[in-house]
């Protein structure tokens, strides 16, 4: 094991895969010489050279289009879109091209590419550089959606995404970049589509993603120590494929499900999970599924405002206690 930061785990995963497979190439804005605006790709240009690590112009259409054309013809490109908000500039490639070509051509192509992007709030960047857009991606058939919460998962899931024969949209959370954690030494690859149960409790189940995972874990500690509620916390890790088996099993066991979502309210990923749970384990539920989300508003910039709207530890605790009560299962 070695301690790595979340941001360093990105470069570690890319380096691991570029070392292993000559077909892996990497392109994006300021990713090479500058090492990425979040310093997630420092050292890759020096190590693998400008043939494999390519700085591009500010041309999101060209970045994703080029990655797609390369993936169709034998390479395994990694494309960086600097901020996930900018995916809106090249959404055609996500929604219409990359995700659909294999299906439309009845399997004539595979599309082994990864789109990496910095997602989420916490940096006071305002409404066009802070969004959590994972639910946009989840709505599109044909693209996998991954969002890690720890350095180990960054490395393991990014490596898995690069090896995956299908396109993956990989969300790196801006507010987690500096966090550190143990990462297995040597080659590290996780499986896509497996949620992780981070702690197991008997009273409630909390499902979270990316930056909401550490908040859910802290909230679980508060619930245990101050409210006598014992919580299971699940890190979803990927929205597509979705590990419904783990969610359903834990929800059925605890009888209460809470989602903690950074995406805005309407059609956030928790809505789909709520729907699945309601259809498939309704009679195991002791109360309605409760979604704790960012309100349906653009994100404000001021720290006081941003902090007020993103689900906080306090708000997670309050919502759970308000609906589930204190002192364990009724």
């Amino acid at each position, binding site marked *: 094991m070695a301690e790595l930061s979340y941001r360093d785990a990105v470069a570690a995963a890319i380096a691991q895969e570029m070392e292993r497979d000559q077909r892996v190439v990497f392109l994006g804005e300021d990713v090479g010489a500058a090492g990425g605006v979040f310093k997630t790709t420092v050292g890759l240009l020096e190590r693998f050279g400008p043939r494999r690590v390519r700085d591009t112009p500010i041309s999101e259409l060209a970045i994703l289009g080029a990655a797609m054309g390369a993936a*169709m013809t034998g390479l395994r490109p990694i494309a960086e879109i600097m901020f996930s908000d900018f995916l809106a500039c090249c959404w*055609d490639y996500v929604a219409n091209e990359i995700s659909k070509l294999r299906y439309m051509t*009845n399997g004539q192509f595979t599309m082994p590419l990864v789109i990496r992007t910095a997602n989420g709030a916490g940096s006071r960047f305002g409404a066009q550089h802070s969004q959590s857009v994972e639910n946009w991606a989840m709505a599109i058939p044909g693209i996998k959606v991954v969002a890690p919460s720890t350095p180990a998962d960054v490395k393991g899931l990014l490596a898995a995404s690069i090896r995956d024969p299908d396109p993956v949209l990989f969300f790196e959370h801006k507010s987690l970049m500096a966090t550190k954690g143990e990462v297995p030494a040597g080659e590290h690859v996780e499986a896509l589509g497996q949620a992780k149960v981070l702690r197991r409790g008997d009273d409630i189940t909390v499902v979270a993603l990316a930056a909401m995972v550490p908040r859910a874990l802290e909230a679980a500690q508060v619930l245990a120590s101050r409210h006598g509620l014992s919580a299971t916390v699940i890190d979803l890790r990927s929205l597509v494929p979705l590990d419904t088996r783990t969610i359903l099993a834990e929800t059925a066991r605890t009888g209460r499900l809470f989602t903690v979502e950074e995406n805005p309210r309407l059609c956030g990923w928790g809505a789909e999970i709520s729907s699945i749970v309601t259809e498939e384990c309704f009679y195991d539920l002791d109360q309605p599924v409760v979604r704790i989300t960012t309100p349906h508003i653009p994100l404000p910039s001021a720290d006081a405002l941003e902090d007020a709207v993103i689900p906080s530890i306090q708000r997670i605790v309050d919502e759970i206690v308000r609906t589930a009560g204190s002192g364990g299962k009724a």
Partner: protein
Amino acid sequence: MSSATARHAPEAAPSPATRLALYKSMIELRYCEKRAYDLFLQNLIKGTSHLALGQEAIAAGYGVAMEAGDYTFCTYRGHHHTLARGASMVGVLGELMGRQCGLLAGKGGSMHLTSVDHGVMGSYAIVGSHLPIAVGAAWSAQYRGTDQVAVAFFGDGTTNIGAFHEALNLAVVWKLPVVFVCENNLYMEYTPIAAVTAVEHPAADRACAYGLESIIVDGNDVEAVYRVALDTLGRARSGEGPSLVECKTYRHSGHSRADPAKYRPPGELQAWLERDPVPGYRQRLVADGVPAATLEEIEREAATRVDQATEVCKASPPPSVETAFTDLWADGGNAWRN
């Protein structure tokens, strides 16, 4: 037409065999496209379709000039380009008819014709989207050290969309083996391109913005197109980077099935029909001494192939419903959850 092609176009006429290949390709494209139109009228083709009658010389000129490993990227008006690389008429007409024998087993339709085995890397129905994708294929060829060239065909309307400019810039900066071929048929869809474009020649006048030579060719002259194709493909193959070619042409029918093209000024269609590339080339070959019997034989064979393909398609069943659920993912399935 501008003389901008002169610098690179070899003046020597193509060989007799090549000339017959060009004519044969144009005849096949013309007959097959006319059949597609007939099948529409018989309601055997549903949905929409974008015919390219009148634009055969561009697909044929490039199709004959391209090498087997080269990549073709088409628009939704892509029947010609798909056939010109050797994809079967059964595959094309079958796809238009929504039959199991279609190139895409009915999952793509007229606007998405693809045949990887023939280098046809897809037909794209979002205007301009395939230009950056062709850039990526060219980047891949460069990276892998092959001598493959990617060719992206697109309409005049594409020159006003962002992807066109992003693709050209990146292709030049990375010096990629890609050829951008604009088929300027004077109308973006229903609107004359001149009414909505800042420059007279929508592609060629933009070339200088990317340090490229302005190349304009008579898109109804198959030999002129063929010469420019050889030249631009050769430059790409030898590492000299991308080219942007503007072919002046005209589509004989409307934008799509829904468009009767009533916006065209009186006489315009007639004037262009007189410059129809297919009979025009036939006259030229005959004048140059090619026996009429040789051309008639090509025409008979093409007509027979179209008839036979039509019958095969009519006899082909619709795709099984299960087909709708296959090949979203590389494992062949469509699962999004466990």
